[in-house]
């Protein structure tokens, strides 16, 4: 049994909605039986990361350069998300480095309408 196997199986049980106390108790006893107690912390950290990634994946994340950008593109973003079949409210993050526009990620899809991406593409096309 490898660390990854422990992480995957624990995360899978928790996703299914099993009682966390029983799942974690089962994990501890399995680790003890196989003499793997020393990796308990690493497994728990791995499970935490996996579940956090799941949470991020299932919620769309919108990145704007500033609050002003959020106001400007709110409606456009809503239309695009509904076109993708996404009904959940996006989690909003502010990142000045995108200069303007917005990016939105949902699961393994990305829509990049940031000014930074467009300007970088323009610059590279012109420079080369």
């Amino acid at each position, binding site marked *: 049994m490898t660390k990854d196997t422990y992480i995957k199986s624990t995360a899978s049980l928790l996703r299914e909605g099993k009682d966390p106390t029983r799942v974690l108790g089962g994990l501890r006893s399995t680790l003890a039986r196989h003499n793997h107690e020393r990796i308990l912390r690493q497994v728990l950290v791995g499970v935490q990361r996996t579940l956090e990634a799941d949470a991020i994946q299932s919620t769309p994340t919108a990145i704007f350069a500033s609050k002003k950008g959020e106001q400007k593109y709110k409606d456009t973003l809503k239309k695009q998300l509904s076109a993708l079949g996404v009904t959940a409210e996006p989690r909003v993050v502010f990142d000045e480095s995108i200069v303007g526009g917005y990016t939105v990620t949902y699961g393994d899809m990305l829509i990049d309408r940031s000014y930074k991406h467009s300007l*970088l593409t*323009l*610059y590279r096309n012109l420079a080369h």
Partner: protein
Amino acid sequence: MSTAIIERIKKEIEELETDSVPEEIGVVMTVGDGIAEIDGLLNAQMMEMVVFDCANGKDLETSMSDSSDLCGLVLNLEEDSVKVVVLGETRQVKEGMTVKRTGKLLSIPVGEDVVGRVVNPLGESMDGKGTLEGDADMPIERVAYGVMDRASVNEPLHTGIKAIDSMIPIGRGQRELVIGDRQTGKTTIAIDTIINQCHEPLERRPICVYVAIGQKRSKTAGIVAKLEEAGAMEYTTVVATSASEAAPLLFLAPFAGMAIGEYFMQEGRDVLVVLDDLSKHAVAYRQMSLLLRRPPGREAYPGDIFYLHSRLLERSAKLNDELGGGSITALPIIETQEGDVSAYIPTNVISITDGQIFLETDLFNKGIRPALNVGISVSRVGSSAQTKAMKKVAGKIRLKLAQFRELEAFMQFASDLDDETKARIESGRKYVEILKQSQNAPIPFERQVVSIYGANGALFDGAVAHNVREIESSFLEFIEREYNNIFETIEKSRELTDELAEKLDGTIAEFKQSHRQLYEVAKD
């Protein structure tokens, strides 16, 4: 600011006003030793290009300092993740970095601009002469042409090396392996073949592609300099990957060379692709496969090592007239260890190619250069790839050399030989001398025909073996000076008619009369 620049910027902005198409992304989970494991990208294809978002989190100005996006190549498709080889600096890749699919398979820009340049397997210029503007993008990996699309190999590719053109002739569309230990002259044969193409008329001259796989940069620079000096860079492209570059680039190099060749082949032209060398290519592929956790097989090579080389070399072909009649001739090079041609990779490639040229260290050290072992070298295309003129004169050489080799061993023990045996040994020695050739001095085929005709005839009668080369070069100079139409006739007609043969007999007699001192001095 000029109007042209403003128009260009307007055009670029228009192209940016596209619909928001969602892109599929993944996230880097682990990265190390040039391999990145990406979570996601579940729809990625094998050999698809992906782009690492190195600009994420950086401001615009810092991002602009990177001249291009960092790319990777998908090589392992697993249940929840894909493994990607990074085609560039792995240090830029960080855990948690976003990776985007491009939806495109790896391709290289090709076109007339590529000829005369030194490029890397990604099509980037390495010679400082500016960015390459290709006419088209050719995929690096491509399925070889089918059986019905091919024609038989019937046109010679002259190497300019007498021993090869007479006894191991190579045809356009053939794969001929050059195999031998280190420092036996393998690369020299390839370079001489490239240089010799400048003797071909422009309409028949093949485009040459020299692929340096894991070679020292000094060696590659030396080769480029030699080709430039000989005027061969005008029709040659060099795909260069040095020993210090990452294994994925070494893996891609021969495929890139073939892709460049295929572009010209599709246009109906002939191409020569030299792959120097496939031993290093196999080692790079082994390194990549082990890092990708693919199961190791014999000598730790992956199970598909044969397929790696077979699919590469099968792309070399002679196309039928319907498809333009173009061809790719491949000269793969393999380096053996201590002459062991029964090792894994050499036997693999021997079974794939249409013949092999064996070079031996012993012969090299004895001064027989090129150090070809004619006895075990073979061309499976054979005389179909020879001009009529060469066929006529070259028939006897192999037999005479075979007889000489038998007697050579015998004569060490026998103290008293009969005259006939002595004559055969002396004749064999002269043929061995005649087949020696200087480095980077390929000889056009018409001169080879005349030289071998002279050897078969009376040219070297009365001469001793160690003076044969001097007599040969004097004879060729004599013909060029006095009877240059002989060379022109053979070059145009590619035949040695009886009339021409008679004329040659006359010139040999005249030469021997006027250059008696060469024969007399030798006897002294």
